[in-house]
């Protein structure tokens, strides 16, 4: 570890992280002519060669079952999980939080559900609307052009619906809904819930040299044809083509190096192969290591000029950590039993979803919780796996023999599931800080998490449970899986893998570490482009917003650098 290798040259920008935020920063900055170095803590990943697409269960260890190394099963592309060997974290005793880390080129963009929902005008001014949480320093109008460009670059399908607070985008045509989705849509209508085509970053038409989807439903396995969005498929190749981007993998960032003037002058990282520290220098530093990892980096970057860590003069780094509220219900639809066989894999994910529909009631104070959730739909004749029959006695009634065999054939494809994804309001009890006693195997102090849902989120989960059960019953089905109070099946903090908000942006340096351009108030050549700057966490999955915001931030960075304002 004593071995320090100084880098011979100075880059214009060092970007920590290669996922949605880091990939977008590299794409924009290299186009603007900046020489960039990207540091990725994980290994290289080739989205085509390393894909597990088209594999059958019997071609994988234990039929592709989930393991601690692959919590979503062997086929899941993501290298990482809630527990990493040698990289612990702690949680306040009695509280529940789980921290997902993707350690691979492209980060979590190899993992996500491709759900690409624009946030709406309400989502940027939540405090103004209901007096809870905080307003963003920017509005929907500020970000709208960047949503446009991001969608045109990555490819998102969807339909124009003009729905309240769910702005339409630059959409490719959506795929037709499957049979169970049409049944759910009809049931939703009876309950006065709008159900519309989903919005996913999967190509239903060729785009920018990428070919269209083959409808195998295996987006999570890494798309071998590059037809869905991931950073290594869409953002990194054009950045590399400029010859201005160098990518170093196995580079675990340790701290931001600070010059005597108090500004960032590079990054100190651990080269995992040699276990030696390497220092690299740049004019500007961009952090995009994921919300909690970015907070950890800032807190671990202590210097005489920034004794409490970088951008942490007011002790705000790590605060207002948010995830998404999740709760699930499952059941079956008898009308789907005994159908003739057909292939309905479709795209990897739902073809329809239900955006939040109760703004009007909330405005009239007729709901017992603020903020909304959207509903995701699952079901269909998907690939069977070794875990597909857990609890089968509940719908097959037990039994054995030919009767059982005929029963399984009859029931195949009749199951449906609903997942709610709701907005959490930032609170004082959910945050991360440096654990004063523990380091990871690279010697870097680790994070300690504090987590508490408030009654707002619990009531939302309760409403999810009631709504999903009503949906199944209205569709003529039966509920087989649901949750009751007191917590209504609410997910653990971090379980939905939407952690955001640890280094928020704002108009006042006393209440936000970053300004409206996601630039540190205390260190003008430091920018953040991951989920950390997010001020709220609307029910719309954050990746698309992270990318639109990263585009805006990187564009500003490039322009400020050109003007000499960052030197």
């Amino acid at each position, binding site marked *: 570890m004593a071995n320090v290798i100084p880098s011979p040259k100075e880059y214009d920008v060092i970007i920590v992280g290669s996922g949605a935020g880091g990939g977008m920063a590299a794409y924009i900055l290299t186009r603007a002519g900046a020489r960039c170095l990207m540091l990725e803590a994980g290994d290289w990943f*080739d989205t085509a060669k390393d894909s597990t697409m088209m594999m059958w269960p019997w071609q994988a260890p234990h*039929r592709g079952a989930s393991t601690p190394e692959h919590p979503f099963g062997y086929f899941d592309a993501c290298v990482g999980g809630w527990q990493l060997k040698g990289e612990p974290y702690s949680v306040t005793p009695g509280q529940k939080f789980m921290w997902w880390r993707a350690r691979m080129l492209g980060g979590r963009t190899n993992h996500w559900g491709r759900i690409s929902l624009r946030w709406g005008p309400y989502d940027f001014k939540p405090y103004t609307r209901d007096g809870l949480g905080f307003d963003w320093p920017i509005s929907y109008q500020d970000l709208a052009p960047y949503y446009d460009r991001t969608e045109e670059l990555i490819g998102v399908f969807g339909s124009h619906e*003009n729905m309240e607070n769910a702005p339409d985008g630059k959409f490719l045509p959506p795929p037709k809904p499957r049979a169970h989705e049409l049944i759910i849509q*009809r049931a939703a209508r009876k309950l006065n819930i709008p159900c519309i085509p989903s919005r996913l970053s999967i190509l239903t038409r060729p785009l920018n040299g990428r070919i269209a989807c083959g409808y195998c439903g295996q987006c999570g396995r890494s798309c071998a044809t590059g037809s869905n969005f991931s950073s290594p498929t869409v953002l990194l190749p054009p950045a590399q083509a400029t010859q201005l981007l160098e990518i170093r993998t196995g580079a675990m960032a340790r701290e931001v190096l600070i010059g005597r003037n108090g500004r960032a002058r590079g990054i100190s990282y651990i080269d995992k192969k040699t276990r030696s520290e390497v220092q690299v220098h740049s004019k500007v530093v961009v952090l995009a290591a994921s919300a909690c990892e970015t907070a950890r980096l800032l807190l671990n970057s202590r210097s005489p000029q920034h004794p409490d860590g970088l951008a942490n003069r007011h002790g705000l780094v790590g605060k207002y950590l948010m995830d998404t509220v999740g709760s699930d219900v499952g059941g079956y639809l008898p009308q789907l039993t005994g159908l003739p066989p057909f292939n309905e894999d479709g795209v990897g994910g739902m073809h329809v979803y239900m955006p939040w529909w109760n703004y009007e009631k909330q405005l009239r104070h007729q709901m017992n919780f603020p903020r909304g959730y959207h509903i995701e739909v699952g079901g269909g004749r998907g690939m*069977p796996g070794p875990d597909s029959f857990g609890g089968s006695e509940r719908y097959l009634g037990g039994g054995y023999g030919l009767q059982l065999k005929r029963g399984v054939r009859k029931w195949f494809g009749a199951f449906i599931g609903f997942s709610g994804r709701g907005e959490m309001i930032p609170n004082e009890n959910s945050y991360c800080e440096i654990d004063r006693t523990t380091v990871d195997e690279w010697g870097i102090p680790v994070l300690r998490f504090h987590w508490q849902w408030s009654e707002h989120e619990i009531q939302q989960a309760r409403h999810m449970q009631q709504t999903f059960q009503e949906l199944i019953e209205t569709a003529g089905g039966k509920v087989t899986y649901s949750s009751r109070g007191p917590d209504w099946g609410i997910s653990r903090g971090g379980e939905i893998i939407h952690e955001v908000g640890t280094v928020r942006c704002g108009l006042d340096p006393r209440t936000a570490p970053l300004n409206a351009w996601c630039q540190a108030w205390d260190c003008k050549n430091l920018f953040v482009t991951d989920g950390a700057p997010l001020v709220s966490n609307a029910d719309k999955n954050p990746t698309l917003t992270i990318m639109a915001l990263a585009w805006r931030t990187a564009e500003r960075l490039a322009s400020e650098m050109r003007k000499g304002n960052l030197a």
Partner: protein
Amino acid sequence: MPSRKSQPSAEPGAGLRRRELLKIIGLGPAASILPAAAAAETAAAQAPASASATAAPQLKSLNRQEFDTIALLSDWILPADERSGSASQAGVPAFIDDWLAFQGDWLSAEIRGGLAWLDLECNRLYKHDFSRCSTAEQKKMIDRMAWPHSAAPEDSHAVAFFNRLRNLVLGGFYSSPMGVKDLPYLGNQMIPEWNGGAPPAVLARLGLTEEEEENQRWLRQRQAEGHWVQRPLPPARRS
């Protein structure tokens, strides 16, 4: 476990083009697009599936007698019929042996404990192990375990064991080549156009032919009545 990490290349994401992929998938087993390491794993994983239950593979968690009883029970649960073979013909006993070793002690104890009880009870009633019982005796025992709603309360542990075993057998069978053909699951292939999955006749049978249009009409009407339309933001509130 085969590694899925590859070496750096100049162009991430470059490589397979759709036409090539379709060609490969159309011509041969999908495994041909896999990296060599995974393909080797594939061959190893397929081997037990083609071997019969009595071919004595290396056991990982069960002893020989337990393995044979599992094979017997598996075939009671899923026997052969005109569409597909039996659970043991699909390699389910080897799957269960591997699964128990992989899942760890809690499941192994449950299954092996259930097997121990089964032999104990058969010896009490019939003076020999389950595997040496007559077909009628075996059926009697299985009928005690297989019907959760009508089983005797004192057999609750046997019912729980059999529920677990049934689900393992189903999982093992339907995630095997034989089971996939049996269902049948018709996906895991690249198709040039997506038409919604269910053929028109099925949609007609479900009464869904007009659903999309109906939904659109309803949504537009609701919006015309003033629902789910964007409202202006109130004046900014100062915190």
